[in-house]
């Protein structure tokens, strides 16, 4: 209890907690879960966008998309590294992902159906992710905060790129504009849901706020996101698929229609349209690569043995 108080005082003083510092078990556990989920999301997130690399309609877009998906892998890599500072190995986290024990962002269990999805994902999904992640750059746990600074910089580049793809489509042929509107219709609500349940129904929030792992509530972040996105959609002359969306002068923000929480929980619980396919896909890649990882290990050992023998 005394320790907990001291710890909380450090947090309140905005001191960064570093891996070798003493920390409450709950703090550690929360971070391992959150960073792990975040890392897994980056890894699984490579799949829906990766689905369009081989069909990107221009070489410029193909290169940009490849680079983006690569960045996501990079985010995964440094998030795993941040989690590893808390004593959990990448191997262990990978196994938890593949066994279905660990979660990842539900948004990636929706399919990418047209090229426009690539634009809209960049614009909305990366946009929502940034809203969530900017406060994490000031997270009390040092390695996570530092990883997030780098992640956010790249994400905001992706977001601009996505918006630009959508703009090109919105200003393109009628078929292209329809494709953009269709993608927006499909991704809007899932993006809104990325901020999680309403504050009243959110489980982990209070303690995470106190520990400064979290700094804004789900609803606060969702509001920011909507307020930022509505004028962007208007600029593109695209319609957000929510007839209840309207400016509320009093609160200085937009009101939105009711969220379909049944759909939210269905997908969170692992019944999203692509849920099985994503894990099957990752598992197939992992299993198929086993012989390569084994060979790399065997070779490193041989080399090491030779070096010792030569000394």
């Amino acid at each position: 209890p005394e320790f907990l108080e001291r710890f909380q005082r450090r947090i309140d003083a905005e001191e960064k907690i570093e891996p070798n510092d003493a920390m409450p078990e709950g703090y550690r556990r929360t971070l391992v879960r959150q960073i792990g989920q975040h890392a897994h999301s980056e890894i699984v997130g490579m799949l829906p966008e990766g689905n369009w690399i081989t069909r990107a309609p221009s070489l410029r877009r193909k290169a940009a998309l490849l680079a983006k998906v690569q960045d996501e892998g990079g985010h995964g890599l440094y998030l795993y590294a941040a989690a590893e500072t808390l004593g959990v190995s990448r191997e262990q986290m990978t196994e938890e992902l593949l066994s279905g024990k660990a979660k990842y962002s539900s948004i990636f269990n929706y399919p990418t159906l047209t090229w426009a999805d690539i634009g809209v994902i960049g614009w909305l999904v990366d946009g929502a992710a940034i809203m969530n992640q900017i406060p994490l750059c000031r997270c009390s746990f040092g390695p996570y905060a530092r990883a997030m600074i780098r992640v956010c910089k790249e994400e905001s580049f992706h977001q601009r790129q996505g918006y630009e793809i959508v703009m090109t489509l919105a200003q393109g042929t009628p078929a292209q504009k329809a494709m953009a509107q269709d993608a927006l219709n499909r991704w809007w609500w899932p993006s809104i849901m990325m901020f999680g349940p309403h504050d009243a129904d959110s489980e982990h929030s209070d303690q995470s706020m106190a520990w400064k792992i979290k700094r804004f509530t789900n609803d606060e972040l969702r509001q920011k996101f909507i307020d930022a996105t509505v004028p962007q959609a208007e600029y593109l002359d695209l319609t957000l698929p929510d007839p209840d969306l309207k400016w509320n002068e009093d609160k200085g923000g937009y009101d939105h229609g009711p969220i379909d929480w049944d759909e939210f929980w269905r997908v969170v619980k692992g019944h999203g349209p692509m849920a099985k396919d994503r894990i099957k896909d990752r598992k197939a890649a992992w299993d198929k690569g086993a012989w390569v990882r084994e060979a790399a290990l065997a070779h490193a050992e041989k080399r090491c043995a030779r070096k010792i023998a030569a000394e």
Partner: protein
Amino acid sequence: MAVWQAILELADDHLVLGHRISEWCGHAPMLEEDLALPNMALDLIGSARVLYDHAGKLEGAGRSEDDLAYLRGEREYRNCLLVERPNEDFAHTMLRSLYFAAFMRPYWLKTLEISSDETLRGVAGKAEKEMAYHIRHAGEWVIRLGDGTEQSADRMREAVASLHIYVDELFESSDVAAEAETAGVLPVRGDLRAAFDATIAQIFAEALLEVPQVPYPQTGGRAGLHGEGLGHLLAEMQSVHRAHPGATW
């Protein structure tokens, strides 16, 4: 006159190999390779873009890089057969990249030295360094797998048996390439064999692999005589672009 077509051969090589490597995206054997493979693909596609753009300008018919990449069919593609070979497994993929880079690195170095074409020298200056990295990265994997487990050594030998028959074609100059070589725009492909052989010999020695004899090399890519995989690759690659004629992306 035929110089633009010689550059098109180069561009096709780079795009097709870049595309093949990009097929791995999100499915590599380890996360580090999920970063390294797109890197290699990006290098290749980056070079392809400049080369297509340049070829289109030299042709003078107003064709853009995307026109050249997306609106030619399998018989019009002029890439060598090596680069279109399917990914198969990681051993094949790494060996394919090693062969290509071991050829392209001296090719670009020579381009820097002899070419009268400023754009090509520009590509060469950048790509030469990239190809050095590809040799290093793919070469290290060839060594690791060749001198790894029994299974990996088997797969590596199988990759050599599958792919070495496509090596000789790298050094063949098509008619259009020969024109560009005579004009001092591009290096003579056949002259680069010694450099290639030295790179491969060194890596294969460490990888415990033998360089096979190839009595009947496979060729034909420069005449548009491809394998059956390229058509499927292009069908997929060009599908969105062709479904929306004239659109801007």
